[in-house]
């Protein structure tokens, strides 16, 4: 009896289970669950859809004024296509536009300088506070204590210059670039007519890696190839430019200027060339006496025949160009070098080079005492109580950044930038500016609304200026768009170029002294990645995707060292190094042995090792500028950081 019951229970249970399963199967649930599983494993974010539009806008970031077309999905900008698609910002602009660390509102410092403790404030409050500080200084006749640092000669830059000058200070500086150096050394920046030349000799100017205006350079490069223009690159390290050039003349580190002087010597002595520029006699005397070809060739490592050949090609060319200004984005050259190279232009009597100077927006009488020669000079030798920093990052980019930071801690600093950068860390106010895509352009085409409360830097400056008792009168405009027509103008230099024999006299001795130091046997030469440049690009994650494994890889910055030198100093591939100059030491970079750098040279990438500038740039590698030479150049007043001697350990 029991037995039967047990069996029956088994049957009941079995029937129930079997039935349940059948029902389950026929309900379609198993199939659906598989389908659900498939969808669930596609755990993806779905971008919001919308109507596709292509909007045209004038990019007014640089004088080039490219026409850019922006692909919009609904109200989102998803792609930038620029007419000549070669803007150094170009594709990365979107990454700035939608950067999660964009500054939303004006920020006021709450913590100590150097910390990123800020509190949001309203525009009015910020403007009032800033303007009151400036007005107070002007009242106490301390207008000279007002200073400004611009990124480059842009609309907002000129507006800021106007504001500072109008308030009675002459302390307006531009981050050291090929233009600023030229202004100091030559009395105006050289405008090269790359379009109509037939021969280019570039002394260390990496023309195809972001030097000057990359837009135009790329276009010129194509034309050169078409027209068979000869590009001769005088350079120390092998780079894209040297490889793409028709000829690469390898010189010892830092001897570009000497080579130029040697050529000058040859042209003056043997070809009887002269230049109309003032002080030529004195200058040429020194050149003839101190720079005989034999010596030059021994210093530069270029044999005499080559030098002559080079000089001949120069004077045989119909419309040659000799380009000065070593580097690509970060440029540094001594005035002697600039003058020597520019001197070659005058000796070759080329028509393709002219000196220009920024016209500014109408002359403003400056009562203040004469400014320092250049930014680095100012940082080193002057004091300030109020400083405006417009889109620039001197704390990071200047070799004297640390000193500047110290001075900033005592002063009142206003920094205009879309992202918190190293300079902003030492500012009392950080005012959010916009990317090129935002806001209206001069055709009043507004593509994207400015992000949160950010404004065009020009508008910010106008806003401040209008609150200044002294400067307000010189600002009639209501927006930077109205001011735009007057901006970006250049005028011919009245004074013209003049040789300076004084600085040339003991150039050679200084060079020998520099080379003579046995303690620092190697030269530290910067290597730049086109997109990272001298640091601006690093905040954009997609830029990081372009970095190759011998520049920055898995948390380590790589430096390039020539094979022979590696044997000499006992360095092996991938070894961790410290680089020491007389200014200090940067630690734990990895060595990559390659012959693309010259013997006794350490090639170090620029643009790494930010203190701030978003988490994508923060704490990546080291900032080579920290140990680079801060020897000031008398004329351009910017440190000649290209001439840095180091040792490795």
């Amino acid at each position, binding site marked *: 009896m029991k037995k039967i019951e047990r*069996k*029956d229970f088994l*049957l*009941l249970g*079995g*029937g*129930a*289970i*079997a*039935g*349940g*399963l*059948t*029902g*389950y199967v*026929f*309900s*379609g*649930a198993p199939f*659906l669950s598989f*389908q*659900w599983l498939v*969808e669930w494993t*596609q755990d*993806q974010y*779905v*971008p919001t*859809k919308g*109507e*596709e539009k292509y909007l045209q806008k004038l990019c007014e970031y640089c004088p080039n004024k490219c026409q850019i077309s922006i692909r919009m999905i609904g109200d989102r900008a998803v792609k930038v296509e620029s007419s000549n698609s070669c803007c150094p910002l170009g594709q990365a602009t979107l990454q700035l536009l939608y950067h999660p660390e964009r500054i939303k509102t004006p920020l006021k410092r709450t913590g100590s300088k150097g910390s990123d403790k800020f509190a949001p404030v309203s525009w009015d409050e910020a403007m009032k506070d800033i303007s009151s500080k400036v007005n107070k200084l002007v009242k106490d006749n301390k207008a000279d204590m007002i200073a400004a640092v611009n990124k480059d000669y842009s609309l907002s830059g000129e507006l800021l210059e106007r504001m500072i000058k109008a308030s009675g200070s002459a302390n307006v500086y531009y981050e050291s670039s090929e233009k600023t150096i030229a202004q100091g050394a030559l009395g105006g920046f050289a405008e090269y007519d790359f379009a109509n030349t037939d021969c280019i000799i570039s002394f260390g100017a990496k023309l195809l890696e972001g030097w000057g205006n990359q837009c135009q350079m790329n276009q010129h490069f194509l034309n050169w190839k078409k027209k068979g223009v000869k590009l001769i690159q005088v350079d120390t390290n092998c780079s894209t430019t040297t490889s793409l050039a028709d000829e690469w003349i390898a010189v010892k580190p830092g001897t570009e200027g000497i080579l130029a002087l040697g050529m000058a010597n040859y042209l003056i002595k043997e070809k009887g060339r002269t230049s109309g520029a003032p002080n030529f006699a004195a200058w040429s005397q020194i050149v003839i006496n101190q720079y005989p070809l034999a010596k030059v060739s021994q210093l530069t490592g270029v044999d005499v025949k080559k030098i002559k050949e080079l000089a001949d090609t120069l004077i045989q060319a119909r419309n040659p160009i000799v380009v000065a200004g070593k580097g690509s984005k970060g440029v540094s050259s001594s005035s002697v070098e600039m003058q020597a190279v520019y001197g070659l232009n005058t000796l070759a009597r080329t028509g393709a080079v002219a000196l220009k100077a920024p016209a500014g927006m109408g002359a403003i009488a400056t009562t203040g005492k004469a400014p320092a020669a250049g930014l680095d000079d100012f940082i080193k030798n002057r004091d300030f109580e109020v400083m405006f920093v417009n889109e620039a990052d001197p704390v990071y980019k200047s070799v004297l950044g640390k000193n500047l930071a110290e001075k900033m801690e005592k002063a009142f600093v206003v920094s205009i930038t879309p992202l918190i950068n190293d300079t902003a860390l030492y500012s009392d106010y950080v005012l959010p500016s916009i990317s090129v895509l935002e806001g209206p352009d001069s055709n009043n085409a507004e593509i994207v609304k400015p992000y949160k409360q950010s404004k065009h830097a020009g508008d910010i400056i106008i806003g401040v200026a209008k609150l200044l008792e002294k400067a307000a009168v010189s600002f009639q405009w209501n927006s930077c768009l109205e001011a735009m027509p007057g901006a970006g103008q250049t005028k011919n230099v009245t004074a013209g170029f003049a040789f300076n024999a004084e600085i040339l006299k003991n150039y050679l001795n200084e060079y020998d002294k520099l080379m003579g130091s046995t303690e620092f046997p190697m030269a530290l030469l910067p290597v730049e990645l086109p997109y990272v440049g001298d640091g601006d690009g690093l905040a954009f994650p997609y830029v990081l995707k372009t970095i190759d494994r011998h520049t920055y890889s898995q948390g380590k910055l790589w430096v390039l060292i020539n094979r022979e030198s590696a044997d000499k100093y006992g360095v092996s591939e991938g070894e961790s190094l410290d680089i020491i100059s007389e200014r200090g030491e940067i630690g734990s970079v990895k060595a990559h042995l390659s012959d693309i750098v010259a013997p006794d040279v350490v090639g170090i990438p620029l643009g790494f090792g930010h203190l701030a500038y978003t988490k994508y740039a923060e704490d990546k590698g080291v900032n080579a500028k920290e140990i680079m030479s801060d020897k000031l150049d008398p004329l351009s007043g910017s440190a000649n950081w290209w001439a840095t001697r180091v040792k490795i350990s």
Partner: protein
Amino acid sequence: MKRSLFFIIPFIVFAYLSLILFQRACDYTMNLQAEKRLPFNHKTHLTQYGADCETCHQYYDNGRFKGLPTVAECTQCHDRGGEVHNPDPTVPTKKAMLDSYKDTDKPWQAFAAQPDLVYFSHKVVMTATYEDGRKKSRCGSCHGDKAGSTTTEKIKGKMLMGQCMDCHTALHISNKCLVCHD
């Protein structure tokens, strides 16, 4: 005999129960009951008010499909200011529920809605024709008999890739991944 019943009865009972239970579960997961449903009648719109599919389901200029109409588009006909009752059936009247209604609480989940990883172009499919100019596909071929439907209720289940591929095969259309996937 008696013993076999011991098996059959629970079998039937449980089969039925679990069938109902799991079907409910499926319906629930596929969210057939939308939180806010518009009493929209496809049939009357098409038959009496002389609308056709394109009237409400339009294309962008670049050929992309706009998808479901927004409230704004509805109110173009059903004027917010218009009177609620109109003897003439052809005149669209004011619909009170449209005032309380936002595009965001759109209840529909189209049966044929494609996931993001499918690049489906209504335009291309609807333009495809035979030699004699007959259209190769109509709305019905994927969306079922919407024209006859009197509600916005979606067809049960989800359209699968198989359905697309069968059609492609039948019409000698390429079935390569890149035809629809990016």
